[in-house]
């Protein structure tokens, strides 16, 4: 990883709207900027005053005890929370200089650029080939059959599934094993060529071997994509993430370079969590 990992501006008094962000000398380009993000489920506040900068072509892990809002936050980034009628959001989520929550922002266009992989693999009831080819075709990313074949192969290779799936592309996606299905879902997400891939506990439903495969995959994929992953598994965060944010009760307690955070956590709560006192 890089030696110039930006320091947390924890000790300085942060400017309004700027706590827990990295200083401007960061070598990484900004991908998503979040300021004063609040979210309510009906009358219950689930996220309060989140401020965080997420960087391009890195793996950022969101950790914290269950119910701390990490998945809810993840779903703010591609507006999946819109699907729940009682959810109400305030604050700024900025990507590519645009407010993601703005009325003018088309959430479909947003999701096109911010892909997502879910906790449980959810392949479509189509063939393996179609699972991958469907979205690019709809998005007009490919026009000719040959291009499409090529794209499917590339996505499956990137997801590390090609060798296992190349002989049964026409079989249904559900015929694969759980770990393969999850990699198919990753292939499906990267075939659209998004900027960011959100992963919501992508390995929690998988066995250890499949988990290891997916972790390797994340390490490779970050060369092309910004990956933000939620995990309840701290070892996983330590293994794969460049940066880690620790969530607790809807707030970001600490956000730092993963190595720094796991070796010298700045906050007592983080330390308690990392050392397994609760969670």
């Amino acid at each position, binding site marked *: 990883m890089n030696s110039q990992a930006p320091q947390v501006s924890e000790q300085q008094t942060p400017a309004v709207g700027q706590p827990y962000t990295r200083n401007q000398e960061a070598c990484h380009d900004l991908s998503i900027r979040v300021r004063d993000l609040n979210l309510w489920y009906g009358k219950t506040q689930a996220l309060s005053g989140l401020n965080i900068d997420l960087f391009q072509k890195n793996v950022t892990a969101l950790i914290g005890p269950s119910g701390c809002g990490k998945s809810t936050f993840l779903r703010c980034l591609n507006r*999946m929370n819109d699907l729940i009628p009682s959810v109400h959001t305030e604050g700024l989520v900025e990507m590519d200089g645009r407010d993601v929550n703005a009325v003018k922002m088309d959430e*479909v266009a947003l*999701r096109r650029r911010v*892909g997502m992989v879910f906790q449980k693999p959810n392949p*479509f009831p189509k063939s393996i080939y179609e699972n991958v080819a*469907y979205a690019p075709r709809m*998005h007009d990313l490919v026009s000719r059959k040959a291009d499409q074949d090529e794209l499917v192969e590339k996505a499956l290779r990137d997801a590390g599934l090609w060798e296992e799936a190349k002989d049964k592309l026409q079989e249904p996606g*559900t015929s694969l094993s759980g770990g393969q299905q999850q990699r198919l879902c990753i292939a*499906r997400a990267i075939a659209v060529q998004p900027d960011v891939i*959100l992963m919501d506990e992508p390995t929690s439903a998988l066995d250890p071997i499949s988990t290891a495969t997916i972790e390797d995959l994340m390490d490779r994929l970050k060369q092309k994509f910004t990956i933000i992953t939620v995990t309840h598994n701290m070892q996983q965060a330590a293994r794969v993430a460049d940066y880690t944010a620790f969530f607790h009760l809807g707030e970001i307690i600490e956000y730092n370079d993963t190595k720094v955070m796991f070796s010298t956590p700045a906050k007592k709560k983080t330390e308690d969590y990392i050392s397994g006192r609760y969670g």
Partner: protein
Amino acid sequence: MQTNQLFLIFCSVLLLLGLAAFFVGRSKATRVRAAGTAMYAQPDQYAWFAVVATAGPAILVSALGAFVMLLLGTEIPTFSLLLVSLVVAVVGFALGMTMIRSNFHARRAIERVIRWVLAGAATISILTTLGILISIVGEALNFFQMHSFWDFITGTTWAPGNSFLMAAGRGDGASGGAEFGSIPLFAGTFMITAIAMAVAVPVGLLSAIYMGEYAPDRIRSIAKPMLEVLAGIPTVVYGFFAAITVAPFIVQVTDAIGLDASFNNALAPGIVMGIMIIPFISSLSDDVINAVPDSMRQGSLALGMTKGETIRDVVVPAALPGIISASLLGMSRALGETMIVVMAAGMRPNLTVNPLEEMTTVTVRIVAAMTGDLEFESAETLSAFALGLVLFVVTLSLNLVSVIMIRRFREKYRVNNL
């Protein structure tokens, strides 16, 4: 003495015997218990056992006797049959009493009887199917002895008009002018069914999609009961509506655009039948659409698909087995629907593809054959059973395919409430 009176006496004697068995049995059991012997069951259970021992065999014997009488046509005098049954009851009573001992499991015996009675009730449904099959196949075979099966299946003229002459022995020669070619009837049936499905499948499926994917709860809570009302309207009412309102309306409209339509056109019953089937298709489709896991919708939306694309390309294909199964059920209902076509479609067999012309259906001809003043053994009456047989086979296969498809769907998504 009248059979009715005999029967009444038999019942009352049996009732008295049963009551006696109950009280004698209970008191005996109570006595044994009072003597300090531990018993396997409660006195009441011994009492019930005594009742079962008394009445059970007697009822069985009389029922069996009556059935044998019907089946073989032999006359067993009712009086002697009932007398024998009563004797059996008395014997059962005596036997039951001797069984009331401390080491006898009365409860277990009763449970065994209950189990058999319940199992017996369960076989009624099988007997019903068998009954339908036997009655229809039997009479249909009679029919095929008079007219060739091949002509029935391939003939294009349905003209049973002269068959009653033949039945009366006054037909002139072999053919007698009566023809039973069922193709025009099936053509009419399929035409009307096709029109019905053309109305019901799109409207039912789209309604289900709207209710499952778009509708706010308030509209859902109105729309569901509304569709249930639609499903609860009797077919005879639909038939009246088709004949008295829809058919004249269609004639008016076609007149206005210069086409010629019969008042018994196939379009009116077809459309109304389609409306009748909408709730079948929409409610079952609604169930399967709701059963499609939400993760699938989210997976599609997260790829940047619009809601419409998600429904069209992910939700509907996932729910497809259920939707097809619903449509097959609807189709089988349309094929067998009777009142709407009896009231609104024509009587005249007509082989045509023009839905504005009069045509008739299988069920119409079955009703026509059954309501005329015909001898039961006449070819026309029996032809109804031949038509019924084909109807039975077709609807049965549609139902079976539909059941299999819905089972597949259920296994795929592990839904148990479908």
